[in-house]
């Protein structure tokens, strides 16, 4: 599903964000990427959808060497991914329904498919009855659920999330994690950067720990392993 070999990233300013990262993730896995602030988690996440290009190394996503793709092939690569951010990144002037449908419109999905599919994913994230509300009428947790619905509406093979519960209280975070569990249970691979020790420890999934740009630990059924 995902293969990184000898990946390093040195930003133009000279700061080394990642060093010699080697990772192999199988289809269907649920992987946490943990580490202190500034460790390189976001850089790691951004490299998966070619937002950040590594200085050296190679990255394969679903068998494709994404660093060898031409510019015009990148959109098609991204259609196999679902991306979720800490700050939701919703469009405030569009309803819940429109925010999710947007992801299907821009990849030119057929009209008649959009409605049914959007309602289905809104059902999955529990927002079917709020489909005509605007994001600012909803709580943070609900907004993140819109973002999750948008990320999975096009049936991605891999869902990538950068601190998706970073702005949410513990209880809401758990609701969100339940949704991720469900998505993972249907076979979708999930890679999630997080700070949330409690969640990581309780989920018992694979944990990749990064410190100062290096992978210091990679365990199946791992724990967070840092003091807060």
């Amino acid at each position: 599903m995902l293969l990184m070999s000898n990946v390093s990233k040195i930003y133009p300013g000279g700061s080394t964000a990642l060093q010699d990262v080697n990772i192999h993730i199988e289809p269907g896995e649920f992987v946490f990427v943990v580490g202190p602030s500034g460790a390189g988690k976001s850089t790691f996440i951004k490299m998966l959808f070619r937002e950040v290009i590594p200085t050296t190394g190679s990255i394969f996503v679903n068998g494709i060497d994404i660093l060898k793709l031409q510019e015009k092939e990148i959109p098609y690569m991204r259609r196999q991914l679902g991306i979720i951010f800490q700050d939701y990144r919703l469009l405030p002037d569009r309803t819940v329904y429109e925010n999710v449908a947007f992801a299907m419109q821009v990849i030119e999905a057929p009209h008649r498919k959009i409605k049914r599919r959007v309602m289905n994913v809104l059902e999955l994230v529990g927002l079917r009855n709020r489909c005509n509300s605007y994001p600012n009428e909803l709580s943070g947790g609900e907004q993140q659920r819109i973002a999750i619905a948008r990320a999975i509406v096009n049936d991605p093979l891999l869902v990538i999330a950068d601190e998706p519960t970073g702005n949410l209280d513990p209880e809401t975070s758990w609701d969100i994690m339940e949704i991720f569990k469900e998505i993972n249970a249907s076979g979708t691979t999930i890679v999630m950067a997080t700070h949330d020790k409690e969640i990581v420890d309780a989920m018992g999934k694979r944990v990749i720990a990064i410190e100062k740009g290096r992978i210091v630990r990679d365990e199946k059924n791992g724990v967070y392993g840092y003091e807060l």
Partner: protein
Amino acid sequence: MDMSFSTKEYFVRETYKSIRRNGFMSFASISTVAVSLLVLGMFLLIFLNTNNLAKYLESQVQISVYMLDEADNEELESVGKRLSEMEGVEKVTFISKDEALEKFRERLGDQQQLLDSLGSDNPFPNYFDVQVDSPERIQQLTPQISELPQVETAKFGQEVVENLFQLTRILRFGGIMLVVFLSMATLFIISNTIRLTVFARRKEVVIMKYVGATDWFIRWPFLLEGMTLGFFGAIVAALLINIIYSGLQTKIYATLAFLPLLPAYPLLTYVSFFLLVAGTGIGALGSYISLRKFLRV
């Protein structure tokens, strides 16, 4: 361009929303396009007409001898006789005021209503059409003819032709300068409007990229917005040009009856079509400039 119905619908909706959101700037853009194209269109019409007039005059080997209205029949006859006796004159034809009016009526074709504005006045003088054997003869005879009694003026095409071609050159140069200047102003204001749109939608653009929209899918609504602004500006300009030229034609026929103005149609159809293409093109170019600068896709 191969796109599905829902995609086209999406583009049209986005374009409409954006033009409304930019309200004042959209209005300013449409107005600027309209003014620029109006000037461009006017220049085109003046240029085509001057050219046409020069060609028309050049082809003449004749002198028109316009008589004063107070000349009586005897005097007219005597002038006619003296004209036909001059050396190099091949044919002298007398055209009375009434005949002149009638000739003009024929030339008008289906635009007879232009004559209504004349009322009962007949602005045409009595005149002689003097055919000579060569263009050189014209230079020599015209001063002599002007001296004959009761002659108001003796005119021939060639001298005007030189001036007209001169004028055409000036018009062409001045026109091109003005059109270039106005096009730049138009490009500037359209690309500015699109810049506002890009700015207003930068969040959307980022999300579009994350969910896998192609670059062209992202660009289209912006290009369409520019093209729409250009197109509407051109429609305004084309309407104004049609109204102005038709109106001017009525006025010119009523006062400068001899001026062979190009008929309104199909001339105005071509000019309008040209303006629409130019407006839409400028709109597309204006957006493209802005996209190159401000939309990193």
